[in-house]
């Protein structure tokens, strides 16, 4: 965002007054971040698509209620996380959040173990993007959630704690463990 670009807070305020272009700018600015947060947490593209709509619908609907006491991204990712948790609870009430199904939980294992995958797939398995997805799926959900909130939402430790309803120290610990584990996993996949 250049200096000339309006801030997120300015855009959401303009949208609340009926400026549709402001919303478009806001959406394009944060689309990929929210998408990555949802898809990498859920490990399911279809669910992520559905939640993506719900999150942005909620942003559009509640724009008038937004108060610039905090950063827009904190508000946005709070909505995204709440929607994600609600949807998971509503759809899989018998499954704990710990055991949520991650379709890609063994991406790297599948790609490397499948004899039919061939050399191209093996090459893709070494691709850094694939390795990253695989590594993320290896993280415990709370650590992954905290890490993605900080990296994709660009949130501080305090903000992550506020969004997740956890203490500062807990979030700090989760982030530390997440980074250590990711470092190890990415080194392995590399």
């Amino acid at each position, binding site marked *: 965002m250049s200096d000339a670009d309006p801030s997120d807070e300015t855009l959401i305020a303009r*949208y*609340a*007054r*009926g*400026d*549709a272009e402001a*919303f*478009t700018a806001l*959406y394009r600015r944060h*689309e*990929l971040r929210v*998408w*990555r947060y949802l*898809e990498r947490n859920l490990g399911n*593209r279809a669910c*992520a*698509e559905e939640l*993506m*709509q*719900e999150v*942005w*619908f*909620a942003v*559009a*609907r*509640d*724009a*008038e209620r937004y108060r610039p006491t905090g950063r827009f991204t904190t508000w946005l990712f709070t909505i995204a996380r709440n929607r994600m948790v*609600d*949807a998971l609870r*509503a759809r899989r009430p018998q499954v704990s959040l710990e055991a949520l199904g991650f379709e890609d939980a063994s991406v790297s294992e599948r790609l490397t173990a499948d004899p039919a995958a061939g050399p191209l797939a093996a090459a893709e398995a070494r*691709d*850094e*993007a694939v*390795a*990253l*997805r695989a590594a993320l799926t290896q993280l415990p959900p709370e650590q992954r959630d905290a*890490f993605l909130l900080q*990296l994709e939402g660009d949130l501080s430790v305090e903000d992550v704690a506020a969004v997740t309803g956890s203490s500062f120290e807990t979030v*700090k610990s989760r*982030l*530390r463990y997440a*980074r*250590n584990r*990711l*470092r190890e996993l*990415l080194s392995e996949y590399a």
Partner: protein
Amino acid sequence: MKPLPPPHDSPDDADERYRRASELDPSRPSEATRHAVLSHAARLAAARARRGAPRGWLSLAGITPGWRPALAGTIAAVLIAGVVVAPQFLAPAVAPQAPLTVPPTPVESVQPVASPATAASARRAVPAQPAASPAPVAPPESVARSPRGAPANAMTRVVVSGSVNRGAPKVSTPAGAAAPASAPAAAASSDAATGAMLQEHVVAGRLAVAPAAAVSRGVPAAPAPPEAPAEALRRAAAIGDLATLRAQLARGGDIDARDAAGRTALMLATLNGRADAVTLLLAHGADANAADERGTTPLAAAIAANESGIAATLSRYGAR
């Protein structure tokens, strides 16, 4: 003593590797999702822009959108009545052949026509018809009871001298009785009755009466207007016709348009237990909290109707 591992609290190479790898990840939301989000936001923005626009005279007068169709109907009725009745005052070219002895009655005596009791007392005040008139004087009920009792050609005959219409609105031929050509006074009295009825309709704001009466008198009826998109949307939602509902949604009209009772398509789908329609409407951005004019929200309606599935769906979309 074993040293503690480095804390790695601050952004480090793990973050850098994450960001670099993220750039290589081609995963994106679909174009359909992007379109749905942006079109929904644009609709809401348009609604907000309308709400934020300077208030028109209707709003200043306290006339809410729910009352505007009734207001438009009343205005249309007044215009129709004006077109039919005005020539009486503007074109007195066709004067009755026989002198009319019915004296003009002040306009004030016409006003209470809507009240049968007042009309009856006014009738008593009207001087008796001249003895030459063969038309029997109708019982008072023939005017006040129903406009359908008017003569078949009353709509065309109403264009007569204003003094007749204004002077004898309470005297009428019996229902269905055609006035003989030799009895202009009778014709005038039936015309007067029609005029009175028209005025009654105008006062009551009943627009639908005039076209219905015209049809019954053999006037070619205009073809029924096509169903409005908002009405079609609400009807499809109410009956759970998903194909029509999708088609209406694709047209991009106001998804939260309300009927006369302030009910949106979502509310109608909820009231009728159309769970699929509810989900479809919410997915297209219907306002989950659009209450009807009595303040009942869709969630309250779903709970009252014991539609727990619909209530859960509504809650998921932010219904309160």
